[in-house]
Every structure is written in structure tokens, then in C-alpha cells.
């Protein structure tokens, strides 16, 4: 159960980090200058090209090492980065690349006249993002972001390889000690399934709310 809690902590954290990166990334890709756009293109391409397991190993070991080298070079003490923070950062970094593309597509799907109207009434860019762009793109983004959230819950299992105590590692240890492999792995599978079912319920509600201004597609059939 502690393993499940850790898994969820990481998944939630990584999704939040991913959403922040995704929002900034999508904005940068759509409205940024050529340098920003090129940098983001490199980021999304590389992160989506390299297997996540490789990225996790790379960023977890190399990343913490790099931070500590920088810190010692600047005359600070080495820090011990907690597995939780590192896990959130690493998975969030991966998630960010995918959500950048999801959000970019969603922003492109907003009828541009609505954004133009907001500008015509004197909204500042920040207000426009908060009051118009984000809520208006949500119905187009939620299916993609829901995918990302479910992937995030399962990608936490990859952190087992760096020794982070999450659901999969906890299961392996428990199964190894008791030799009841079938029961423990089935239980772990059931827990992942439960997370997914519960998420689906909440995401369904969220999507319904986000689509509040839109007639049902069934009526257009």
C-alpha cells in the first residue's frame, strides 16, 4: 500500500510538472520566436524518440550527478536528492514533451475568433491564457491528457529500476520474500486497474464539464 501511495505521488507530481511544461511548451511552439521553437522541437523530438527507461536511467543517475558536480563546483555541499523528487522531475520531463504536443493541437482547435475577440476587448496575454485559451482548449486536450495521466501511473513502475520504492518494486520484494508470486502480482495488477477505473470516472466527469458549451456529437450524426 505504501508502494501504491508512492506510485500515485509520483504520477500526480509528474503529471503536474508535465502539464506546466506542456502549457509553456505549446505556447512557445505556437507563439515563440524561431530560437524558442527550435529548442522546443529538439526537446519534444529527443524525449519522444528515446525509450523512457533509458531517459530515466540517464536523467536519474547523470542528472543527480550533474547537479552535485555543479553544487560542489560552486562550493556548496553535495545534496542527496530524494527518489520522490527525482522521480517526479524525470517523469515530468518526459510527460512534458508529450503534453506539449497534446496542448498545441488543442490550442489550434480553438476557433481563433474567440482569441481575437478577447484581444479586441483589451485582455492582457496572461488573462487571455487563463480565462479563454486554457478553458477553451480543455475539451480538445482532455482525451490526450487522460492518456498521458494513465501512462504516467504505469510509468512509475519504471522507477523500480533505480530502486525507488513504488508499487512494482514493493510487489517484487513482497513476492520474493513470501514466494507467493501469483497472488502479489495479481494484486498489483488489480491495484493498477483500480487506479485506472477511478481515473476514468473522474476524467469522464471532467470531460463532460469541459464540454459544457458544446452540443453532443450524437446530435450531429
Amino acid at each position, binding site marked *: 500500500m505504501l508502494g501504491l501511495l508512492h506510485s500515485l505521488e509520483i504520477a500526480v507530481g509528474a503529471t503536474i510538472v508535465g502539464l506546466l511544461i506542456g502549457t509553456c511548451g505549446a505556447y512557445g511552439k505556437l507563439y515563440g520566436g524561431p530560437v524558442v521553437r527550435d529548442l522546443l522541437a529538439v526537446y519534444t523530438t529527443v524525449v519522444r524518440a528515446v525509450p523512457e527507461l533509458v531517459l530515466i536511467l540517464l536523467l536519474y543517475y547523470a542528472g543527480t550527478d550533474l547537479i552535485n558536480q555543479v553544487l560542489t563546483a560552486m562550493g556548496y555541499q553535495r545534496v542527496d536528492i530524494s527518489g520522490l523528487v527525482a522521480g517526479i522531475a524525470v517523469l515530468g520531463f518526459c510527460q512534458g514533451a508529450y503534453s506539449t504536443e497534446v496542448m498545441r493541437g488543442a490550442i489550434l482547435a480553438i476557433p481563433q475568433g*474567440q482569441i481575437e475577440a478577447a484581444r479586441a476587448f483589451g485582455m492582457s496575454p496572461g488573462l487571455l491564457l487563463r480565462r479563454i485559451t486554457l478553458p477553451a482548449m480543455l475539451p480538445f486536450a482532455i482525451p490526450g491528457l487522460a492518456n498521458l495521466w494513465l501512462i504516467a501511473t504505469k510509468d512509475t513502475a519504471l522507477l523500480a529500476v533505480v530502486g525507488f520504492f513504488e508499487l512494482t518494486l514493493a510487489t517484487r520484494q513482497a513476492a520474493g520474500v513470501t514466494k507467493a508470486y501469483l497472488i502479489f502480482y495479481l494484486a498489483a495488477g488489480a491495484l493498477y486497474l483500480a487506479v485506472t477505473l477511478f481515473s476514468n470516472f473522474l476524467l469522464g466527469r471532467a470531460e463532460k464539464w469541459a464540454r459544457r458549451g*458544446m452540443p453532443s456529437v450524437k446530435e450531429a450524426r
Partner: protein
Amino acid sequence: MSAVEAAAVSSGKAQSGAAEAIHVENLHKKFGQLHVLKGVSLSARDGEVVAIIGGSGSGKSTLLRCINCLENPTSGIIRVNGEEIKLKADSHGHTVPADRKQIERIRSKLGMVFQNFNLWSHMTLIENVIEVPVHVLGVKRDEAIAQAEKLLARVGLAEKRDVYPAYLSGGQQQRAAIARALAINPRVMLFDEPTSALDPELVGEVLKVIGDLAREGRTMVLVTHEMKFAREVATHVVYLYNGLVEEEGPPEQIFGAPKSERLKQFIRNIG
């Protein structure tokens, strides 16, 4: 004679005492190689209704959209309420507003109504109408709601206050968009072909609302294809041809005794 005086003289019916709400001078706009506006001047005094007419591609919508810098003019002077919009060249050589705060402040005094309504689809009508007063102008929410209810009642949509735009007809959406523009208590209303996207039988209800506003003395700049309507409500008509003002004057003169050959032909074709 200064440009301002010249504009006042040329605008037939203009109340010469009234202050100038919109002043556009020698405006140029290029889209790449395409020279859309080639030095247009326009003036709207308080209480005036200026109708901009012209064929497709004459630059009339572009002219209107330059007034609140939805399109950035390539060169020229725009004054709103006597305040000149500060422009500068950006790193690509495009002209952009120099002061974001200034342009936002000016925009919040201009009530724009679009051809395609552009209501915010995730908000109900009442939310659409209070959005700008509450979040841009800082009006208290309950005051804004009270005012918005009056405005919606005025355009005949009181009972639709909690409906989302997608569930309304084009005419209803456009009337709501007019209420949204009125909610900021605009100095000038800008209409960009407000009836062009509507079914013919819905045009009347929208024109009636706009006509009422004109009759109560609201300052408006109106781009339209509805010549009969322009003739009824406008105090001054500007005919654009190919990025230039071909002829302008009071509606009786423009529609009754046009001087330019092109305008005569344009009126014949449309009428």
C-alpha cells in the same frame, strides 16, 4: 487647414462641436506584397455613425481592424479619443503597438462586433457579457451581472442568460455579441460586417438592434453590405475602392447623387 478640420468639413452631417472619437490619417497596410490600404483617412465624431462600404477586397474590414490594432497598420496615425496609438517597428520590421498597456486600455473602450460573433463557447451568455467588465475593467461581479441582465433584456435575450452560445441561432448569437460589446460601455462601437454570416431571415433582428443604438446617438463605425441599412442609420458614408477612399459624404449624397463612376456602378450592382 489642419487634417482634423479637413476631416470635419468633409464629413457632411458631422456635429462640428462634438469631440473626435476616432481619427485615422493616411493609413497604409501591407500584407507581404499585397498593399491593402493605400493611405486612408477616416474620422468619427461623438454621435456619428460612419458606414464603410465597398466591394470585396477593398480593404474595409482591414481598415476597421486597424482601428483597434487587431491588424497592425504598416504606417499612419490612429487616434482614439484624441490619444494617438503608439507604434514601433519590431525586429522583423513589422509595425506593432509600442505600449501593450496603452493598446489594451484603448481596446477596452472600443466595443467590437465580429462577422462570426466570436462568443466564448465555454461561457453562458451572461458569463460572456460580464467577462470583460469583471476581469478587464474591474467592475464588481454583482454590478456586472445586474448590468448584463439589462443588456440581454435589451437585445431580447433575457431568458437565454444561462444558455451556451452553441445552442442559439446566429441572430441570437450576434445580438448577444452586441450586448457583450455594450457591457464595456464603449466610447465607440465597431461593427465588422455584423450580418454577413447570418441567414437572410435573421438579418432583420440584428439590424434592428444596431439601428436602435444608432438612433440613441451611439458613436459607431460600421462595415456593412446592407446598403439600405447604411442609408437609414449612417450620418456619414465612406466608399472604399482598392485601398483608397473613392468617395465619402452624407448618405443622401452617396446613394442619391454619387459622383464617382465606380461608386455609381457599385450601387447599381448591389441595389
